[in-house]
């Protein structure tokens, strides 16, 4: 290796960006978040407009008491499992989440996980943009304008354009949005709690039946719980991005559980209680009822800004993740971002997808519960929290994390087992249930069974044959084919 030549300030700035927002490992001295910083950022992420929507979905199937438990406990459990699986490793080595996945699923196998990652980001972006469109449509209607799905379509397109502009300008623009949105949403949540309890009181709300009660109360409770878990697991793609930038292992874990788990769960309950009280699940409809013509419009506009801001953030991380695909790495940033935005156009054409949002919410648990379980066993039990960082960036066939042709069949097979098991237990689209789902839920077996099977296969096959670098040293190895 030749001696490093001095770099131009422009090149230095690009490298620094690549470390902060790209794939270079972030050194301990460069981490930005201490306890206070990560708590504030976590709340900014967690207090988002979709919380009201998630609460609304729960209001369809359960009453207030079971709904509060299902949402809060579900969010906390989902985030705990997601964070234990990814936050600890991403923080310890300052690595990006898909790079971390390579140690478990293989250099190429991790790109399959990337598909679920991107689908999550695109799905949520589409959902919140339609929510933005419906909200704007209701504001137009409140001022005597037409009430039409075309208003929603136009608003989704406008939201996409604004979000795209923000993403290509850089994530720093989001700080301006967030400085308005987060305090605004916190105030809106507080006001909503006040209005709900003033109008009905706890006993009044607790007596309300769910909006679409099913005959099977036990299954309805499990469904609501899966919505809470789905909300928690939805954070899986974002957790690594945040926690690689925290200073300690504890700060990479506990603040996430408190903000994205407990905090989000509490905000979701606002949507649940409002849905039960105003008999509508969609926040863009009940906000006008709760706040009246003035405060309702203000709240809807706030939600609209929040949704565009959230869309921009998600598409930013999606575009960053697309850089793992070698063929896309040569694209300029603005074209890469545009590529990410194209599938979201589907929501502008078919805004009615928004009405199937509860299925998408449960889909997140379907996908990420087994992934989290397998990652957790691999990193904590099999690797004892140690990785060889150099090998995460090694594409050579002799690299530690190549497994079989770039895939770890054991990890991918166990992930698939968990996903199929989840869908068999509780189909997230039709909500058809089988087996012991009423007693065990769908997520718990989909996490625990792949964990147990993977541990067994890895001990008997991977560790014994020396595949996957399970007993290898952490010392760096000279890279032959860097994949960055």
């Amino acid at each position, binding site marked *: 290796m030749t001696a490093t030549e001095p770099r131009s300030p422009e090149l230095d700035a690009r490298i620094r960006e690549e*470390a902060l927002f790209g794939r270079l490992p972030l050194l301990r001295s460069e981490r930005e978040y201490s306890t206070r910083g990560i708590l504030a950022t976590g709340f900014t992420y967690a207090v988002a407009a979709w919380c009201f929507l998630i609460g609304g979905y729960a209001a369809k199937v359960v009453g207030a008491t079971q709904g509060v438990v299902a949402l809060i406990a579900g969010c906390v459990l989902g985030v705990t499992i997601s964070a234990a699986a990814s936050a*600890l490793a991403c923080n310890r080595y300052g690595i990006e989440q898909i790079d971390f996945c390579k140690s478990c699923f293989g250099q190429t196998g991790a790109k399959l996980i990337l598909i679920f990652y991107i689908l999550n980001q695109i799905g949520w972006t589409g959902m919140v943009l339609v929510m933005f469109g419906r909200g704007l449509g209701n504001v137009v209607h409140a001022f005597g304008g037409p009430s039409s799905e075309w208003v929603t379509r136009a608003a989704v397109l406008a939201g996409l354009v604004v979000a795209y502009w923000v993403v290509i300008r850089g994530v720093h623009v989001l700080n301006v949005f967030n400085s308005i949105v987060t305090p605004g949403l916190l105030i809106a949540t507080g006001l909503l709690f006040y209005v709900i309890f003033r109008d009905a009181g706890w006993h009044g709300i607790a007596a309300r039946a769910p909006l679409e009660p099913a005959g099977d109360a036990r299954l309805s409770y499990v469904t609501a719980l899966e919505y809470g878990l789905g909300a928690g697991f939805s954070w899986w793609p974002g957790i690594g991005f945040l926690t690689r930038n925290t200073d300690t292992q504890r700060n990479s874990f506990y603040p996430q559980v408190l903000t994205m788990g407990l905090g989000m769960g509490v905000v979701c309950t606002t949507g649940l209680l409002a849905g039960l009280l105003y008999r509508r699940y969609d926040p863009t409809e009940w906000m006008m009822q709760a706040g009246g013509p003035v405060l309702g419009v203000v709240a809807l506009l706030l939600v609209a800004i929040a949704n565009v801001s959230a869309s921009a953030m998600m598409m930013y991380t999606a575009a960053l993740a697309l850089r793992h695909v070698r063929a896309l790495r040569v694209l300029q940033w603005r074209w890469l971002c545009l590529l990410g935005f194209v599938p979201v156009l589907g929501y502008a054409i078919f805004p009615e997808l928004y009405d199937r949002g509860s299925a998408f919410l449960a889909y997140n648990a379907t996908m990420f519960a087994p992934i989290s379980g397998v990652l957790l066993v691999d990193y904590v039990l099999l690797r004892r929290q140690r990785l060889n960082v150099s090998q995460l960036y090694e594409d050579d066939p002799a690299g530690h994390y190549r497994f079989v042709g770039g895939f770890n069949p054991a990890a991918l097979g166990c992930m698939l087992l968990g996903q199929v098991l989840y869908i068999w237990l509780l189909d997230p689209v039709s909500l058809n249930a089988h087996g012991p789902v009423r007693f065990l839920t769908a997520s718990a077996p989909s996490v625990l069974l792949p964990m147990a099977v993977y541990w067994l296969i890895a001990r008997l096959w991977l560790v014994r044959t020396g595949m996957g670098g399970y007993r290898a040293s952490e010392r760096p190895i000279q890279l032959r084919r860097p994949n960055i």
Partner: protein
Amino acid sequence: MSNDDSAFSRALHEELNRRIHELAGPDATPPPMTRGDALLVLALFVLLPALAIWWFA
């Protein structure tokens, strides 16, 4: 690939190499969570929510 891209790519690989070696140094990574943390997490964030779910079922 333009000259700019090729210079960036070279600088990126150098920087990656430098960081990988720095991460292998003493105290370069935060120490892992302790067994006490694991027990606390299990009790507070797994068993307690599970108990609440079971209680209200």
